[in-house]
């Protein structure tokens, strides 16, 4: 027998690998969102389903075409990030949105949000929110038309112009309802915390059930699949600011509970702001990033012209995150005070 054994593999260490890979991270975020999707289907029936499907087809189809229509086994679709982008986008949209708009949102999310920058890992802005911002700018009315929810018995009832054709005048006549945020802002009415928690309100597909969003977030944070500092930082900032404002004028400003549970904050803070690619990597950077989002959210909600500011706050901080990273390089182990630091 020759002393040299030909079947031995030569490589360099480490030879062990944590059994977590990028597709698995994406999968777990999807698992965490599954209950939210199920509740949305329960509340909004086929209309929500159509929006979800349209976003998915738009996003995954676009990625498949842009990457040169590879076979499934070689496709980047397998990493799950396009599907996640699609689901997250859909969750920010109103359930009654015409499918062709949702489809476009999915296309834009992947084409402009992701591939314009060079694909996964290189994008500056959260792709889902890029898609959503595009839709908001193009179809402001459709994006703020919130149908009321009902139960499973109405599964097949359309909540809007789901099957409207592109560029047709919408003939939307379903009963619509104001979101709790709009009520809070324009009518000064607070919604009961219990309704907010359980999703007994109108709003986008995925923002209605704060409790499930939070549960999913806790799961992801504990398992280390998301940067936990970001949602924690956002919630803290929003809570502190909202409390301060509330103390100044309780009639004008609702308390922290309303702020935390209303609108897209849960969805945004836990699932969008934590998009790893578009948030800082340094621990201190994550805190700054979160604080920035928190401040902007409260500022837009209370002093801006819009009822909701989560999307713009996150997109704005996305743009800053490379800078934040540069400013917040960790202090290394055993750092000796360099001249630059001393100065």
């Amino acid at each position, binding site marked *: 027998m020759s*002393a*040299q*054994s030909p*079947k*031995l*593999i*030569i*490589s*360099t*260490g*480490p*030879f*062990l*690998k*944590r059994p*977590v*890979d*990028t*597709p*698995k*991270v994406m999968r777990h975020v999807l698992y965490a969102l599954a209950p939210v999707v199920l509740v949305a289907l329960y509340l909004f029936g086929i209309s929500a389903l159509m929006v979800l499907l349209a976003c998915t087809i738009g996003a995954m189809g676009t990625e498949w075409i842009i990457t040169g229509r590879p076979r499934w086994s070689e496709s980047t679709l397998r*990493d799950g*990030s396009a599907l996640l982008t699609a689901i997250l986008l859909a969750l920010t949209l109103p359930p009654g949105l015409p499918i062709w708009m949702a489809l476009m949102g999915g296309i834009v999310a992947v084409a402009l949000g992701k591939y314009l920058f060079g*694909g*996964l*890992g*290189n994008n500056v802005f959260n792709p889902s929110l890029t898609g959503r911002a595009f839709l908001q700018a193009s179809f402001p009315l459709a994006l703020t038309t919130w149908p009321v929810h009902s139960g499973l018995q109405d599964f097949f009832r359309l909540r809007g112009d789901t099957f409207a054709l592109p560029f047709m005048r919408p003939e939307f006549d379903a009963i619509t309802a104001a979101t709790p945020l709009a009520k809070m802002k324009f009518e000064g009415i607070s919604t009961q915390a219990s309704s907010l928690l359980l999703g007994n309100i109108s709003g986008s597909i995925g923002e209605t059930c704060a409790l499930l969003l939070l549960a999913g977030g806790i799961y992801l944070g504990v398992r*280390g699949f998301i*940067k936990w500092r970001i949602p924690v930082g956002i919630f803290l900032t929003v809570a502190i600011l909202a409390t301060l404002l509330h103390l100044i004028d309780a009639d004008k400003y609702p308390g922290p509970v309303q702020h935390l549970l209303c609108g897209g904050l849960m969805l945004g803070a836990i699932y969008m702001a934590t998009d*790893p*690619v578009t*948030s800082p*990597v*340094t*621990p201190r950077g*994550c805190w700054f990033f979160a604080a920035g989002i928190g401040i902007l959210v409260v500022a837009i909600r209370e002093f801006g012209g819009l009822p909701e500011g989560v999307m713009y706050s996150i997109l704005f901080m996305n743009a800053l995150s490379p800078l934040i*990273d540069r400013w917040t*390089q*960790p*202090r*290394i*182990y*055993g*750092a*000796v005070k360099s001249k630059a630091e001393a100065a």
Partner: protein
Amino acid sequence: MSAKTFRHGVHPPENKGLTEGRLIERIPMPAEVVLPLSQHLGAPSVALVKAGDRVYRGQLIAKAGGFVSVPLHASVTGKVKAIELRHHPSGRMVESIVIATDPSSPQTLHNEEPVDWESMPAEQLLTMVKEGGFVGLGGAAFPTHVKLSVPEGKHVQYFLVNGCECEPYLTTDHRIMLDWADAIFLGIRIIQKLLGAEKTFIGVETNKWDAIRGLQDRVPADLPCELVPLETKYPQGAEKMLVTAVLQREIPSGKLPLDAQVVVQNVGTVAGIGELFSFGQPLIERVITVTGPGIKQPSTLLVPVGTALQEILDYCGGITEDASQILFGGPMMGTPQYDLRVPVTKGVSGIVCLTSKQAAGPRQEYACIRCASCLDACPVFLNPTQLGALARMGRYDEMLENYHLMDCMECGSCSYVCPSNIPLVQRFRVAKGVIREEMARKKNNAA
């Protein structure tokens, strides 16, 4: 007692059960030993014998080739067969002294006698260690006497004994702590005197409670020595992490533990020094763990330095059908071997045989998703995300200047956690190599 630790790090599966209960077995004398003149960090040793010479077990056969170098002793009694280039665990061919064992010789120690260390001044103790050919047995193989030499103006407050053994699979130090307490305490006594240290701490991970309790119960009443349980976490056994965990102080970047007023030695080295002073045995044999799913009979062995890998594997029943990688050292920082003729050198702490299941070829690499897992793992708080991105673009100078590349201790924690399977530490090693070469070239040009 609650366990202390450092910040960050990773938790690879420990897999120590395979050999944990195995007592130390002495293997039969091999027919031949190969003693590379370079089995330590620093200058190679210089041979003092020639082919045909008869040598005795424990006899000096090569002297140190400089201050950062160690002498070498025959690990068997026999005849020098040749001094020639042989395969070395580093993958290179290295000048080695090859000794054919004399089967008729009883293989007793050349010069076995107790040492009257109590009357020796510190310098003489240090000289003894130096002449014993000692290097760090935990894996780094750095000459022990160099670490024990306290330069003028420096003061050593504490001596730290490293019993962490944070690499998965390995149980070498664990066994030594269970079985060789007396040698360990003698070694501590001598080193403490030699350094002028106030006190010794023995840091051990809490997956070895039996060793912690066992040693704690046997600390001699007059010896200022304390056991410190440490959280089981990789790389707890790295010098910097150990110092931080035990004393909550940091070793300044680019400096030695001495600059934090401590000296660290592996527990196996300390036991070896205890043996040197109890019966004059230089470093000619060592304990290794032979383990992993790829070996038929996992064992803890006492082997003469220079025994061929093949011989050891045979003694352990050989490797399994699906064995695909044989490492010297643990699976995080060890070096893979492909030639079974290589000898076990002084710094080899164990042999780990992995199967294709663990060591499956290159994994699919995904784009960096900036998840920050690597930042949260890096025990020296570097930014492997950024370093990795720069390495991919070949911007090594920027890695050096802005991202502290040279502080990377190559522990591999970042590669271990990266969900995108990016070979981070592997790329950092390349970058460091390129930078070192460049520096050497510049120095040459200047001279």
